[in-house]
């Protein structure tokens, strides 16, 4: 499947592949048709995390170039993945390894942004302790950092191209991209049809580290916040036999992670290490609105909690032939029981 290399002008005309696991069928529509693929009383849950400018380029004291992609704040600094020479234009797996750093080494990103390696136990994964904090750290990060991006994108991405329409706190180091096509006009249409939209905040992490062994361990533990009003909305939806549709795999991870870690869907903040795949039985989420995920991608494993591998593979093959575009600026997919019975514009 071809990658979308840049955001498109009219999000409502982006394509939507719907997959109905109950009827074992799929078909083509557009993102603007999403409201007609859902029912009154259904609930969409989005991830409202804004995206950090998490990529920083710096130099070691020996003058060696290093790129740090921040992953998450930790007790003593920021967990980060390091890359060697080059930048996003080179595929992560083709990037040379970073210079070997040990605890106490310094990386200078800018005159007002320097970090000391606090921990370097796993090769390219380190903990960076920045020498400034609070207002001065955030101002410097936003001044010098850039969004993490990959080689299939066309040009340097400005920060505004990686934010959703409702982004709030900057927890994500990559765009929670499933929500990218949700414009306010679409959210307004959904609400007018009695389809509510709720939110969680989930720190979407890196999707690639440049190291196959590390990649196999993704996704890493990610922090989430589930607001009390979202729990109320979900409970009301379930009581009325509506369906809870997660916008993106991060929302599945947050909601199902709470249930697994705390025994029930309760509001609050936490960190989840839940990994979802075939055989996982979701207790909160009925369906998923997400990007088009390649059968070789780790997200594809998660999709198999919602539909069988054969159906997903057939739908993916169809989407490839039909010219759908992949990755974060690409087309979308709705996996939901009984969506084929809704008033869609096309059928398989």
């Amino acid at each position: 499947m071809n990658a979308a290399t840049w955001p498109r002008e009219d999000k409502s005309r982006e394509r939507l592949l719907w997959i109905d696991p109950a009827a074992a069928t799929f078909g083509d529509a557009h993102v603007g048709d999403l409201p007609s693929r859902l029912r009154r009383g259904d609930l969409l849950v989005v991830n409202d995390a804004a995206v950090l400018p998490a990529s920083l380029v710096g130099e070691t004291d020996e003058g060696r170039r290093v790129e740090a992609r921040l992953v998450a704040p930790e007790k003593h600094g920021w967990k980060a993945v390091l890359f060697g020479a080059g930048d996003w234009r080179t595929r992560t797996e083709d990037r040379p390894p970073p210079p070997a750093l040990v605890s106490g080494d310094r990386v200078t990103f800018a005159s007002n942004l320097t970090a000391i390696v606090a921990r370097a136990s796993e090769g390219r994964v380190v903990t960076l302790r920045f020498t400034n904090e609070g207002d001065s750290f955030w101002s410097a990060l936003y001044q010098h950092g850039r969004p993490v991006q990959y080689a299939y994108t066309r040009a340097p991405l400005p920060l505004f191209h990686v934010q959703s329409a409702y982004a709030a706190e900057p927890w994500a180091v990559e765009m929670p991209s499933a929500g990218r096509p949700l414009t306010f006009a679409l959210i307004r249409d959904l609400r007018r049809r009695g389809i509510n939209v709720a939110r969680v905040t989930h720190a979407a992490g890196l999707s690639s580290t440049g190291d196959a062994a590390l990649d196999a361990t993704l996704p890493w533990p990610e922090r989430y916040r589930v607001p009390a009003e979202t729990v109320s909305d979900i409970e009301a939806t379930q009581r009325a036999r509506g369906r809870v549709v997660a916008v993106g795999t991060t929302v599945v991870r947050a909601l199902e992670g709470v249930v697994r870690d705390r025994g029930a869907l309760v509001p609050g903040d936490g960190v989840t290490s839940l990994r979802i795949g075939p055989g996982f039985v979701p207790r909160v989420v009925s369906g998923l609105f997400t990007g088009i995920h390649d059968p070789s991608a780790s997200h594809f494993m998660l999709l198999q909690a919602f539909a069988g591998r054969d159906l997903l593979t057939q739908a993916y093959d169809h989407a490839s032939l039909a010219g759908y575009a992949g990755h974060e600026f690409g087309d979308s997919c709705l996996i939901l029981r009984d969506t084929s019975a809704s008033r869609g514009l096309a059928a398989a």
Partner: protein
Amino acid sequence: MRIDGSAALVTGASRGLGAALSRELARRGGRVVLVGRSIDTLEPLVQEICASGGEAHAVVGNVADKSATHVIAGAAAALVGAVHLLVHNASTLGHVPLRPLLDTDCEELSRVLDVNLVGPFRLSKAIAGSMALRGRGMVVHITSDAAVEAYPEWGAYSVSKAAFDHLARIWAAELAPAGVRFLSVDPGEMDTQMHADAIPGADRATLGRPADVARRVVSLIAGVPLGRGERVVLGRAS
């Protein structure tokens, strides 16, 4: 709206009404992000507010610069969480001494519109979306009587403020159903550097003090059930 505990962002916070609004919001328990173009002017103010027990943070950014939009919005949300109250106070007169329209450079008009209209639009666009999703939030436009009166030589500033008032009304028409409130406040003439630039030699005794005006603006935000794009004129306090 409840100020205590709210996350507030004030642009043009280095001096004048913006500084006074920041102090007042922090005094009432707001967690305030002060936005201005220079850390050197913001930092002493942040320290002063923190020293008196308030919470304040400095974010450097020029609202007229498109690339600063998400820098301001992102850094603010990192420091205080999702913003509940956005106060568009930053403003420029354009060239001073003020000049007739026939002598106003086209580029100068564009620059004034960038600071007074387009910049606030961008910042609202970056922040009001999260308010609409949450179903609550307030955006305040600090305006001027020049938005409605046609004073000679105030052309660039005046048209920018007229459009700014209407921008608040349209935002409100679109987002009131989602629970986001917009309000324009004309604070009246104040004893500020901006006033001195516009009308050198004015009798300062006749001008409002920014601290007094800020108290009234914040009381208005806190207490009055407004927010559908109304234009509120603060008369001189008796």
